[in-house]
């Protein structure tokens, strides 16, 4: 599974992208965020306020209860500010 980061979430985590093999217990976006939060202090800081964490799966916005598949492209980012 590829996970991409954008904006200050990318900066806090310190990388734009990582490839992960997830344990079976990670079934939803919320599970993934919990799992990532434990992987480093940067991850924890970036994902700390879940209300500011937006997620896209295969380039489509999803809610945190969205179910994941092993070959998904996940993107994690703060609320968008374009326009």
């Amino acid at each position, binding site marked *: 599974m590829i996970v991409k980061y954008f904006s200050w979430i990318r900066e806090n985590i310190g990388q734009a992208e990582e490839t992960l093999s997830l344990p079976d217990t990670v079934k939803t976006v919320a599970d993934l965020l919990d799992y990532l939060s434990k992987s480093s202090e940067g991850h924890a800081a970036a994902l700390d306020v879940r209300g500011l964490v937006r997620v*896209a799966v295969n380039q489509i916005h999803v809610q945190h209860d969205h179910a994941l598949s092993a070959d998904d492209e996940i993107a994690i980012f703060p609320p*968008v500010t*374009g*326009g």
Partner: protein
Amino acid sequence: MAYVSVQTDDFDLNAEVACIRAGNQDIGAVVSFIGTVRDIDGSLRSMTLEHYPGMTEQELERIANEAEKRWPLIGCRIIHRFGTLKPADNIVLVITASRHRSAAFEAADFLMDFLKSNAPFWKKETTAGKEQWVEAKAADEQALERWNS
């Protein structure tokens, strides 16, 4: 029918309006929106826009298609820049064309509201001493809700 572009280059308003009008003599109304880099107190040096290549284009097309479903548009164009911009530079252009003015006005307004809350762009402002990511506004989320009623 909709045209979408995500680019570093600036756009030319006249040229884009000419594209949407070309060959369409049944257009009666053309509405354009330009969003620009605002510098309220003279302290802004630059603004950098990051985006999510691939998803951005797909999301803008999805938003344009939604507008075309809701209003009888004859044309619809969205151009959004990314990279580093200066104060007063253009950021985004939305153009809608229709027979009557209400469809063009409403669709352009709708496109901007949806783009603001859904297109994966993030702005970082550079002032004299520091860099800061722009925070999303609650007003933008509220603006979206108008279109659900």
